[in-house]
C-alpha cells in the first residue's frame, strides 16, 4: 500500500492523489490518443460509440449518482440536445458553436423542467420523467415540420475549422471529437465534485433536512443539478444523433432512458468511472451476444435477446454487486493492496435502515 504524506491542503484538492495515480491516468489518456492506430475502423466506431454513451451517462450520473434523483426521462434531453444542435446547424450556425449551444439550451430547458419537478421525490420523480420521455417521443412526431417526424432527419455534414468530420471518411476525427467532448465533460464534473456545489449535491442526496440546516438551498441545488445533467446528456444526444447520421423519434425512445439508467448502475452509481464502464458494457453487449448466438449455430436473430440479457445482468448486479463494476474493482484493488492482510468481512455490505419516503 502506498502511503501519502499530506504536506498541504492541496493534496485533497488536486485532481490526482499522487504521482502514481497521475501517471496511470496519463498513460490511459495516451492509450486513448493512439487508439486509432491500434484498431481497425469498425472497432474505432465502437469506441466512439462507447464515448458517446459515456457522455450521456455522465449527465445522468450527476443527477442520479451525485444528487440522488432518479430520472427515467433522459432520452428527452438527448433528443433535445440533438434537435437543437442540428436545427442550429441548419440555420447556418457553425457546428463548433451549434454543438455547445445545443447543450446550453438543453440545460436551460432541463432547469426549467426541474422547477416543478422539485416537489417530487423518488418514485414520483421517476414516473414524471418517464412521462416526459414518452411525451417527447410523441412531440417529435407531432412537430414534424421541424423535426422531420417519423421519417426523421439527416444529420448535416460536420465541419470544424475547415476539417470535415465524417464517420466513414474520417473515423479517427470523429473519435477524437467524441474523446474531446467526454474529456471536457469529465473535467467539469470532477471540478464540481471538489467544489462546494458538488458537496451540496451529496448533501441533498443524503439528507435534505440537514443540507438545509447547513445553508444549502435545496431547490436551487436540485435545479442546477438537473440543468447541468440535462445539458451534458444533451451534448451526448447530439453526438449520438450525428453519429447515427439519420435519426427520428425512435432514436430517442424512453427505452434509451432506461438503458442509460441501467448502464450507470452496472458501471457503479456515484462514480465517474461507472459511466465509462457502463458504457463499455452497453456498447459491446450486442457484439458479444451476436458472437454467442452465432457460435451456438443460430442464424436468426432472437428478438428481445439483448434487452433480456441486459435485464438479467442488471438483476445480478443489483443483488450481488450494488456498487457496480467500479465498486467491484475498488474491492479487488483494496484486496490486492492489503494482500495478504485483507479480511473478508472488510467488504461486508452495510445494511442500511429502510429509509422511508412515505410519511404516513
Amino acid at each position, binding site marked *: 500500500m502506498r502511503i501519502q504524506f499530506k504536506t498541504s491542503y492541496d493534496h485533497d484538492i488536486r485532481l490526482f492523489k499522487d504521482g502514481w495515480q497521475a501517471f496511470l491516468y496519463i498513460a490511459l489518456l495516451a492509450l486513448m490518443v493512439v487508439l486509432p492506430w491500434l484498431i481497425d475502423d469498425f472497432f474505432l466506431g465502437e469506441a466512439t460509440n462507447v464515448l458517446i454513451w459515456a457522455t450521456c451517462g455522465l449527465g445522468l450520473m450527476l443527477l442520479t449518482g451525485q444528487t440522488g434523483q432518479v430520472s427515467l426521462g433522459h432520452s428527452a434531453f438527448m433528443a433535445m440536445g440533438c434537435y437543437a444542435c442540428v436545427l442550429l446547424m441548419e440555420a447556418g450556425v457553425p457546428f463548433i458553436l451549434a454543438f455547445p449551444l445545443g447543450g446550453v439550451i438543453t440545460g436551460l430547458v432541463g432547469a426549467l423542467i426541474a422547477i416543478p419537478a422539485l416537489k417530487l421525490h423518488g418514485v414520483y420523480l421517476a414516473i414524471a420523467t418517464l412521462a416526459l420521455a414518452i411525451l417527447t417521443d410523441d412531440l417529435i412526431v407531432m412537430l414534424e415540420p421541424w423535426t422531420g417526424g417519423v421519417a426523421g432527419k439527416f444529420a448535416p455534414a460536420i465541419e470544424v475549422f475547415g476539417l470535415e468530420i465524417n464517420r466513414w471518411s474520417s473515423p479517427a476525427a470523429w473519435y477524437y471529437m467524441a474523446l474531446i467532448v467526454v474529456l471536457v465533460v469529465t473535467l467539469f464534473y470532477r471540478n464540481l465534485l471538489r467544489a462546494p456545489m458538488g458537496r451540496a449535491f451529496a448533501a441533498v442526496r443524503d439528507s435534505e433536512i440537514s443540507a438545509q440546516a447547513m445553508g444549502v438551498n435545496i431547490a436551487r441545488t436540485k435545479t442546477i443539478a438537473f440543468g447541468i445533467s440535462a445539458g451534458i446528456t444533451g451534448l451526448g444526444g447530439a453526438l449520438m444523433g450525428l453519429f447515427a447520421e439519420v435519426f427520428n423519434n425512435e432514436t430517442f425512445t424512453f427505452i434509451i432512458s432506461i438503458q442509460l439508467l441501467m448502464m450507470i448502475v452496472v458501471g457503479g452509481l456515484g462514480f465517474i468511472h461507472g459511466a465509462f464502464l457502463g458504457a463499455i458494457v452497453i456498447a459491446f453487449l450486442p457484439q458479444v451476444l451476436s458472437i454467442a448466438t452465432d457460435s451456438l449455430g443460430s442464424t436468426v436473430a432472437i428478438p428481445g435477446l439483448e434487452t433480456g440479457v441486459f435485464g438479467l445482468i*442488471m438483476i445480478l448486479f443489483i443483488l450481488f454487486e450494488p456498487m457496480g463494476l467500479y465498486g467491484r474493482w475498488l474491492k479487488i484493488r483494496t484486496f490486492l493492496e492489503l494482500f495478504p492482510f485483507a479480511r473478508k468481512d472488510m467488504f461486508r455490505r452495510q445494511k442500511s435502515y429502510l429509509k422511508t419516503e412515505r410519511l404516513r
Partner: protein
Amino acid sequence: MEVLQLLISGMANGCVYGLVALGFVLIYKATEAVNFAQGDFMMLGAFVTLGLVNPEFMGLNFWVALPIVFVIMGVFGYLLDLVVLRALFGQNQVAVIILTIALGFILRFVAGLIWGHEPLSLHSPLALGDLRMGTLVLGMADVAIIIVTFLLTLFLWQFFQRTKVGLAMQAASQNQMAAYYMGIPVKRVQGFVWALAGIVAAIAGILYASKGAIDPNAGFIGIKAFAAAVIGGFGSLPGALMGGLIVGIIEPFAARYLPAGWSQIAPYALLIGVLLFRPHGLFAQVRVKKV
C-alpha cells in the same frame, strides 16, 4: 349515442389500466417498492391463460384453467418476493425501480421465446361479440370487463376492511416497524401482497386479452397504468381504479375530438399536470417528515 359508445369502451380500457394500477398500489402500500413490471405481470398472466386455454396449446376448459392461472401467478409473485426482492430489503429505491424494470425486460423476452411475437387472441368466454341497439354498438367484452373489475375492486376493498390478513396488510403498510413490533409477520405479509398482485395482474391480463390480441409488448400499458396510479394518489385502491377510468376515458375522447396525436399524449400530459398541481394525486393528503 356516440358519446355513450366512447364512454363504455373508454371505461373498459380504463378498468384494465385500473387493475394494473391496483397491482402497483397494493405492492407500494405494503412494501414501498414500486413494481415497474406490473404491466408485464399482466402480459404474463394473459399468456399463461392463453397457453392453458387456447386449442393450439393445451386446450383446457377456461373455467378449469382459471384457478390454475391464479395459482401459477400467485406463486410467481410470492417466489419473486422471496428470492429477489427480499434480498433488497432496506436498500434504496433506485435499486428496486431498476430491478423491476429489468424484470420486465426478462419477462418480455421469455414470453417472446415461448409464445412468439405475433399477436395472439385468447379463447375467452368473455369475447361475446357485439350488442347492437339501434345505432349503438356495444362490445359485450367491454361490459363484462367493467362488471368484473367493479366486483373485484369491491371484493378487495372488503378484504382489506374485514379480514384479518387484510387488516394486517394495512397495518404493515402504514408503519412497518410498528406492525413488526405488534407481532404482524411483516415479511410474510409482503410475500402475500406480491402473490395477490400476481393474481390481480392475471385477471387484468385475461380481461385485456378478451378485448383483443396480446403480444409480449402488451406490458407497456403498464406505463399508462402508472399514470392512473399517480393520478389516483398511489396510496389508495379506489383511487387507482378512478385514475384508471380517468385515463381510459380521456383517450377515446381525445382521439375523437382533438387533433391527431393528442390522444397519445393526453394521459401523460394529465399525469404531469396532476404531479405539478397535486403531487400526491387527486385523492391524497400530504404530511411532512418529522425530525
